[in-house]
């Protein structure tokens, strides 16, 4: 069932700029894909390129995962490369650590955000620390995929935004994708990374479509961090800088549209990497706008939004005309889903925050 093994990605030439160029040259206009399908393509191409890439988690085999992100992979790569694991997250992460030591590049799937916590101990005590403990003897090329965020009308533990916990842990990298193209590029880069990457996927955007060019990005990134991990200005503007990541990005873009109608120009930035933060473009933007709104579904207290506010204030103190305004989840458990529209950042809340920033 396993396809003929492709050359090791690290030695393949497809990832060189030249390789990219020539591929892009012959490519037809990029087709449209859902975010889930883009992730599936990234897994598939990574598995084709490197026989050491394996996928593991609950229901990732025949079912293809509850969101079908791993659809068809077990059929094509066999059940030694796509492992339906016993139902235990510490077990998934803990065995992935051992597999990584053995030379594999495990891509683990946590079924929903709220179920990563049984695996938290292995993540903080082993995944994040092994390279440090052994002074680099073991690298830890392990990806932890987590569908995250609310808005799907789910029961408890299925709509959380736990990314801040991981940002507080030295030794991890934390990213969140927001478009199909990024989903593909970032997952390929995460799999190619020799460090552990916690990879957040905006679950309520799985079925949203966008253009996707898979042919051009089949190699490992040849610079680090890869371009796809860097903060990116999604829409330039002049009055207020608005930043977020993952599921809230479309909300920000809609807010920028609405604000434009009111004569306010928002600069929208997608952070993409949450740890280490790539704040350069944000600080640069704030130097121009003097105002920053940070948006996230996660609870406010001791969160990644706290950190962005604190650090941008440090780095752009004299440029700020207003304190950094945060639109975040409340400091409560995630509420019953009929209330999630009240809980989640939405257009109105973002526009309200923009107004508050401008009111200073």
């Amino acid at each position: 069932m396993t396809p003929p093994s492709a050359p090791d990605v690290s030695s393949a030439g497809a990832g060189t700029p030249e390789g990219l160029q020539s591929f892009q040259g012959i490519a037809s206009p990029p087709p449209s894909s859902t975010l889930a399908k883009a992730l599936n393509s990234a897994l598939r191409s990574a598995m084709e390129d490197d026989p050491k890439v394996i996928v593991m988690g609950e229901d990732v085999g025949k079912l293809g995962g509850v969101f079908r992100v791993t659809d068809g992979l077990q059929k094509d790569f066999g059940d030694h490369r796509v492992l339906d694991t016993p139902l235990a997250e510490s077990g998934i992460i803990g065995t992935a650590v051992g597999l990584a030591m053995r030379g594999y590049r495990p891509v683990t799937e946590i079924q929903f955000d709220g179920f990563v916590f049984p695996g938290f101990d292995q993540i903080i005590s082993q995944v994040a620390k092994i390279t440090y403990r052994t002074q680099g003897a073991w690298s830890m090329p392990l990806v932890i995929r987590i569908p995250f965020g609310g808005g799907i009308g789910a029961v408890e533990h299925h709509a959380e935004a736990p990314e801040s916990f991981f940002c507080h842990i030295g030794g991890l990298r934390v990213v969140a994708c927001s478009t199909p193209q990024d989903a593909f590029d970032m997952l390929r880069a995460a799999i190619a990374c020799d460090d552990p990457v916690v990879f957040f996927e905006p679950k309520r955007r799985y079925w949203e479509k966008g253009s996707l060019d898979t042919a051009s990005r089949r190699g490992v990134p040849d610079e680090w961090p890869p371009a796809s991990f860097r903060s990116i200005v999604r829409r330039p503007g002049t009055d207020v800088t608005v930043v977020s990541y993952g599921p809230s990005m479309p909300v920000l873009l809609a807010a920028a549209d609405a604000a434009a109608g009111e004569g306010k120009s928002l600069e929208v930035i997608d952070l993409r990497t949450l740890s280490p933060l790539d704040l350069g473009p944000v600080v640069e933007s704030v130097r121009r706008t003097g105002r920053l709104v940070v948006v996230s579904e996660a609870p406010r207290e001791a969160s990644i939004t706290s950190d962005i506010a604190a650090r941008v204030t440090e780095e752009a103190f004299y440029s700020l005309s207003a304190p950094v305004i945060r639109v975040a989840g409340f400091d409560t458990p995630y509420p019953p889903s009929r209330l999630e529209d009240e809980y989640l950042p939405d257009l109105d809340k973002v526009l309200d925050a923009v107004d508050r920033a401008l009111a200073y």
Partner: protein
Amino acid sequence: MSGVSPTPITTAPGATAPSTAAPNTAGEAAARGAAGLRGQPTPSEVIAGLRATSHGEDLVQLLSPEGDFTAHPKFPIEVSAEELRGLYRDMVMVRRFDREGNALQRQGQLSIWVPLLGQEAAQIGAGRAMRRNDMAFPSYREHGIAWCRGVDPTQLLGIFRGTDQCGWDPKATRFNSYTIVIGNQVLNATGYAMGQRFDGAIGSAIAGEDTNEATIAFFGDGATSQGDVHEGMVFAAAFDAPVVFYCQNNQWAISEPVSRQSRVPLWERSAGYGFPGVRVDGNDVLACLAVTRWALEECRSGNGPVMIEAFTYRMDAHTTSDDPTRYRMAAEEEHWKLLDPIERVRAHLSRRGLADQSFFDGVSAEADALAARFRAHCIGMEKPPPERIFVHVYSQPHEQLDTQQREYLQYLAGFVDDGATQSGARA
């Protein structure tokens, strides 16, 4: 109420292994379709499946699928005709509102429903074995236990409609909230049982219904892999906690067959912790009742913990979001229909003359009435007020949340004042 009969469940282990249950009719093969082919197990899966799902003499069964009763020396039981009719009624009622739950989800009235179809006997047997003072810790599929604890079925709806996270009083009903993180409740149940022991609520010599207490923890076959379930068993053994570990092995954890969790039958785990384990036919309500009664009594008298594996089958999808055609064969589902937990009680009642058609018709009508009430209640359930987000996070005052609540309500009030609606209708 006795008699010997062939007991197909215990003599046809191969029937549970998909590959040996080859389709023998074109119709069955068609029913499988492409998905069925995809679901074809590998040889190693078949072997693992046989090992994990086989059951021989160890399976306790009192009522055969044909409805014949055979007494079990270790688990004697006295059940009056009225009680038996009651068990039948329980199962029919529960199945009926369970089906209505599915329908309500399909019609957009619920976000999701978690069906118990096929597990009625495992749940009614266990639930009716409990006494008032016993405490239950369900997972998320225990609608039948809820029924036995006096939770009105409509109280289950909020979780699945998204209006609440627990619609009943877990303290008054002695039926904890549903627990979704797999395995968590097993430790909570063990702790509760430890408290029962520290309170002196077990082992009392004074006869009487309510002097002694026990706890029962419900979990699935998949859950047995979680560390929490293990630790629950370790703690229960260490503290002699009066807790029954009731595993409903419905043979699937979403798309994963039980062979993914264990090479051997799950009840065999208990010996490694030093307490007894029993495997019971989970589609036999009498066996479940008898074994659970025994287990709870062992706990109440100070001989806990005890493990029970109720060997049953998830006849429907994992939830309404699931699509089992992707991972299992229709033939397997068809096979289990023959082992239906309700049918055998109906057969027994009819054949023994313990119930007549009017009884069955009456239960059926009652079930339909319940379903109608269930539906009407569901449709009438409103979105809770926004304050609900902020209340009961803490039992004692919390200024920070009070502030967040006040600010949010003020923010909302702003829209009303402006005459603008929320959600993008601004500007």
